[in-house]
């Protein structure tokens, strides 16, 4: 079988797995683009950011970071915390990404929640090249996201209704992800730590600078309370799925 045939066969096997992501990323990507447009950014912004960052939660937060005062250290620290879960996707994929050649750097770059959960769980049919399959899943997912973002960014200029309040889509998204995370824990200790630490720091440091102290307190509290918290966590599966 030639390289081209192997690649096409893998594409045919991969595409059906990505159809749910097509609708999900299509919807959220368009919303993201409209949201950026409503905040005064041209369509080039969502397009380029989706191409380079490729991480839904962070990209929504990044819109606010771009509107706040310039603070690259906060941007870096917040990004690390939001994206920390990817560490565990990488660990889970150590073996699976072996011997994928030139595709490996892109597979790692595009290791978002959705690509992880497909590539981690999909039963790749006999005779289909594993590297190509995972490559197509990752590339298709990112394509849906980038196109959705750009379409939303352009459509944002022509929306015939008042978009005031559309920024709530970000709040709604994080509330849903939080509910899904809570389902994985027997007791909501970690969410409570996050909530209380953030509220205290919001009052103490103000809306513009509470994130870094909040994150420090969260790490400290999780470290100090490990003995109590760990039994309530699901440490088994590397938790893919709902978060974006």
């Amino acid at each position, binding site marked *: 079988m030639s390289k081209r045939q192997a690649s096409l066969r893998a594409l045919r096997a991969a595409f059906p797995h990505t159809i749910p992501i097509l609708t999900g990323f299509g919807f959220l990507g368009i919303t993201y683009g409209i949201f950026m447009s409503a905040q005064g950014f041209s369509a080039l912004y969502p397009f380029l950011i989706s191409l380079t960052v490729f991480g839904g939660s962070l990209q929504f937060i990044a819109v606010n970071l*771009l509107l706040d005062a310039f603070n690259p250290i906060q941007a*870096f620290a917040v990004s690390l915390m939001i994206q920390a879960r990817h*560490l565990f996707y990488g660990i889970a994929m*150590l073996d699976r990404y072996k011997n994928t050649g030139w595709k490996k750097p892109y597979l790692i770059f595009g290791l978002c929640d959705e690509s992880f959960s497909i590539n981690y769980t999909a039963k790749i049919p006999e005779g289909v090249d594993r590297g190509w399959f995972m490559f197509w899943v990752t590339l298709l997912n990112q394509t849906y996201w980038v196109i959705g973002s750009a379409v939303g960014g352009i459509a944002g200029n022509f929306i015939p209704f008042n978009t005031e309040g559309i920024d*709530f889509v970000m709040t709604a998204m994080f509330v849903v*992800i939080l509910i899904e*995370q809570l389902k994985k824990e027997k007791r909501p200790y*970690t969410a409570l730590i996050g*909530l209380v630490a953030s509220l205290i720091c919001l009052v103490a440091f103000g809306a513009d600078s509470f994130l870094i102290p909040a994150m420090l307190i969260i790490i400290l509290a999780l470290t100090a309370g490990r003995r109590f918290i760990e039994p309530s966590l699901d440490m088994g599966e590397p938790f893919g799925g709902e978060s974006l």
Partner: protein
Amino acid sequence: MTVTQQIITVLMCVLATVLTRALPFLVFSSKKPTPKFVRYLGAALPAAIFAMLVVYCLKNVSILSGSHGIPEAVAICAVVGVHLWKKNTLLSILSGTVIYMLLVQLVF
């Protein structure tokens, strides 16, 4: 923010994202078990961070003035309710956002 500052901010997001995605391939091996504390943080951080991000989204809401955070509270209840009822992520996000937009545009 100037365009240069915007580019630096986005680059920080890119750098941190690539770092979290690539680090395991540089540091860990599939032969050796991952350090327990790293695994613990991986399981414990997400809910704490997403709780923080919900607070971040609401950071400019004032309980004492304006609409007193009522539209936000109603819309969040709607998101939670719809999500527990229908278990459909997109439906929950969509319905909460539409309710919020209607509230801030027509009621408050």
